[in-house]
């Protein structure tokens, strides 16, 4: 059984997605329980697979689907990079699904079974993107996850439907770009397997066609990762979606696309001049994203939109780190993938919870909410401090490594952008924190203290605690995982 783990982490949620709607017609409680059990099993499978990968000397676990050897068959590859990503995706999927329980019982859609089914499809799609070693298979999973995400995001009401339709249009263009791009590369090399293609592309010697293919792939994935200026779909989609969906999607979906960009540019096309040019372009886009995202976040009066624009800026951190290409900068970017998933997940879960409990989501509306939901507000505060990048939280240390990388590369504009963005995010986060904890109207009687139910509170608190502890104790993660996730050309 355990030798099939690389495919099991995808197949388990995929097959549960088929069972859950049927079960949901009888009992929605049972359907959600099966969903949780499936996600827990997926997390265990991903963790076991990762430990096994980390124990091997070369750290690569190649799995041939159906026994067909690549390049003819589809290959799944778990290395420290994809193994780590799959654990991250699986754990946040479980956290958001636990959080979804109380939400779905009270204010979710009528058919909880369908909701859970779509959610499992989304998880399976994202895990597939991470685990696959085949460029076309990656496209398939990209579409599975995107279509599931469109449906889930649209369940948030009328405005969510409009926002999602826009995301659907933009997302389809992105997917088509990606497909066209791999079409070029397939025509040049006759293969879709990542390792195989990497070896054959040099021999093809068609620089213009390669450049067009690479360009299309990069644009497609950059749209999916919401890299500035391709971020337009993101704020509305995140703002109006149901809280558990935003919590999960905002935490990992753009990060998985960023992973795909990193995988393709460094591991598949590492030797191509076109990939180097794409990285230069992405570096500038990253710096622009850092500045623009933070600046636009400052102008928002709705906390969810503010968090969404802050995501645009934070994706800039990650892309900028990848583009610098030195070990320390890539480690910083990978560490920020992890940190941003944890802290943004926590922030969206709490914000959604506050709206669910009080109906409020504007910055002004948060006044005094800390008195009513003290533990949720504390989790929000920890994650917010980490977003600003203040020690001793994890967010500080990823920023530290990114800054070191920027200094090494003498990317002064990047240094300025990182520091400026910290200033701006300090302003927009402390504006919210001040209202949360100090904004209470003293003249009125204090409203009843009533925090979120345990199922919604616990995931947010655990994420906040991890953000806090990962700051001071991140050395094992970096040395055993992230430093082994560097591309062969760099390390």
């Amino acid at each position: 059984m355990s030798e099939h783990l690389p495919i099991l982490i995808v197949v388990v949620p995929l097959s549960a997605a088929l069972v859950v709607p049927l079960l949901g017609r009888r009992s929605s409680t049972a359907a959600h329980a099966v969903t949780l059990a499936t996600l827990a099993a997926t997390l265990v499978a991903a963790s076991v697979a990762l430990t096994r990968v980390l124990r091997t000397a070369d750290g690569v676990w190649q799995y041939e689907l159906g026994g067909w050897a690549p390049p003819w068959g589809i290959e799944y590859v778990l290395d420290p990079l994809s193994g780590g990503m799959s654990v991250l995706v699986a754990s946040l999927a479980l956290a958001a699904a636990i959080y979804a329980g109380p939400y779905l019982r009270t204010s979710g859609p009528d058919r909880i079974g369908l909701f859970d089914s779509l959610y499992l499809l989304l998880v399976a799609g994202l895990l597939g993107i991470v685990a696959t070693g085949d460029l076309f298979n990656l496209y398939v999973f990209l579409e599975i996850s995107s279509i599931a995400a469109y449906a889930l995001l649209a369940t948030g009401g009328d405005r969510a439907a409009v926002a999602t339709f826009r995301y659907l249009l933009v997302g389809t263009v992105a997917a088509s770009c990606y497909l066209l791009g791999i079409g070029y590369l397939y025509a040049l090399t006759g293969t879709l397997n990542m390792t195989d293609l990497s070896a054959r592309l040099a021999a093809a010697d068609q620089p213009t066609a390669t450049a067009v293919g690479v360009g299309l792939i990069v644009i497609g994935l950059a749209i999916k990762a919401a890299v500035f200026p391709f971020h337009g779909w993101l704020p509305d989609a995140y703002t109006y979606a149901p809280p558990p969906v935003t919590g999960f999607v905002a935490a990992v979906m753009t990060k998985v696309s960023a992973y795909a960009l990193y995988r393709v540019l460094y591991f598949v096309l590492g030797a191509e001049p076109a990939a180097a040019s794409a990285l230069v372009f992405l570096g500038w886009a990253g710096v622009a994203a850092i500045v623009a995202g933070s600046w636009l976040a400052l102008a928002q009066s709705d906390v969810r939109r503010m968090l969404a624009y802050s995501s645009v800026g934070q994706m800039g951190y990650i892309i900028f780190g990848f583009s610098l290409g030195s070990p320390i900068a890539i480690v910083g970017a990978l560490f920020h993938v992890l940190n941003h998933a944890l802290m943004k997940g926590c922030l969206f879960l709490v914000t959604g919870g506050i709206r669910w409990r009080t109906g409020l989501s504007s910055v002004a509306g948060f006044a005094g909410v800390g008195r009513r939901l003290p533990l949720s507000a504390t989790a929000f505060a920890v994650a917010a401090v980490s977003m600003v990048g203040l020690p001793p939280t994890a967010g500080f240390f990823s920023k530290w490594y990114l800054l070191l990388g920027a200094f090494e590369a003498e990317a002064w504009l990047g240094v300025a952008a990182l520091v400026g963005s910290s200033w701006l995010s300090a302003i927009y986060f402390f504006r919210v924190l001040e209202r949360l904890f100090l904004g209470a109207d003293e003249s009125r009687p204090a409203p009843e203290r009533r925090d979120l139910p345990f199922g919604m509170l616990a995931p947010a608190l655990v994420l906040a605690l991890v953000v806090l502890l990962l700051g001071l104790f991140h050395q094992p993660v970096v040395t055993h995982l992230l430093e082994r996730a560097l591309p062969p050309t760099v390390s």
Partner: protein
Amino acid sequence: MDLAARPLAAVLVSLLAATLLPLAGRRPALREAITFAAAGLKLALVASMLPAVLDGQAIESARLPLAAGLTLGFRADALGLLFALTASSLWLLTSLYSVGYLRAAAVPRQTAYYVSFAVCLSATVGIAFAANLLTFFVCYEVLTLATYPLVVHAQTAEARSAGRRYLVYTLGAGQVLLVAIVWTESVAPGADFTPGGFLAGRAEAGVLAAAFALFIVGCGVKAAIMPLHGWLPAAMVAPTPVSALLHAVAVVKAGAFGVVRIVGYVFGVDVLRATGADTVLIVAAAATILIASMRALGEDHLKRLLAYSTIGQLSYIVLGAALGSVAALTGAMFHIAGHGFMKITMFFCAGALHTQAHRDGVHGFDGLGRQMPVTMTAFAVGACGLAGVPLLAGFIAKWNLGVGALTAGDEIIVGVLVVSGLLNAAYFFPIIYDAFFKAPTTETADAREAPWPMALPLGVTAAVALVLGVAPSVGFRFFALARLAAESVVAGSGGLP
């Protein structure tokens, strides 16, 4: 306990108290017991390292490894121990004072208050014992975050606006400091604080000067070097014990201590001389001393007056660091302790006057010397000390600074010190005159002496200010520590004797 574990334990003990305090909930006696136990234990731990450090040892705890060869770690050397001793002994006294003040002034949300206070002390001692710039920065920013709830404790509009200003200044400067530290890390990877500095020859003079400017802006906000001082008078909206310990001792001294660390242990005096950056710092410090004293003269709110006096006094420390001879550095380092005891006396007195006589201004103290003899006597001692009257702690610092200035050939600095002393006298002595030489008015006639939890700490700090002026090396041996640290810095950079 193993000697090597003590710097770490001294940092963590108040953090442990901070996690226990919320559990004490609404039981004030238990809450205060935890605070006192932690404060006493912290002081005992810090003081127990004194003999070894005076022997010339640096006591180092086990490091926490991070990636890329970086570490977080604590090490007690002479300068660090001097600051840690000052902060932890004053925390014990302030805890006692807080008990009296918070009850007398009926301050709400006391658990949150004590928790923040305990975290601040961990951060302060962490700053003192930080072995490298990264550890220093982590503690420095934790101090900012932990003091914010104390500044806005009253939760009024005024407090919130002061809190905002505080964050803009301190977090803004923190990022500048971060850039400077990352730069240092990129040219000297994994370097620890070294007496005499470790940057000599690592970069061109112009780059070093630019980096030094970033460092000074980063630390200068907390050290309130003009024009970076704007947050300090506004932050006086906090409860008085907060102003006393944090804005006279911990936060502002963290900044001044940072300047000394950076001048003496990162750059080295010689490197700064070579770049000419020392002259700029001397001018800024001297200007701050004079302008702050003149601003204090025009201030009619007692705590804000003390804030301006703090701004001026902190620049003595900056000035000493910039002058860089053994005498000047000794004076600067000794002033970290000396000014701490004197200024906290003044704030304790201001708090007592607030709760007992309802006086927040600088007028109307008529006859209070008779009504509140302990408080007003301590006030007079502190004021004389700050003005630099001989036989008090302030004089020791000033004398050594003056000697350092003359050695360096900066006679004009001696003039600055004298004028500053006169201005100090000009804004403090009218208050003392009113209190002791005028008859009580109807407003002051029913003022009573502060209760003992307030009167005892302020009496003790005033007495210490006196003892330090007469015998600066008894007890905690602040002067010996300062001398030891100053000599190691100068020997390390091979500069002037």
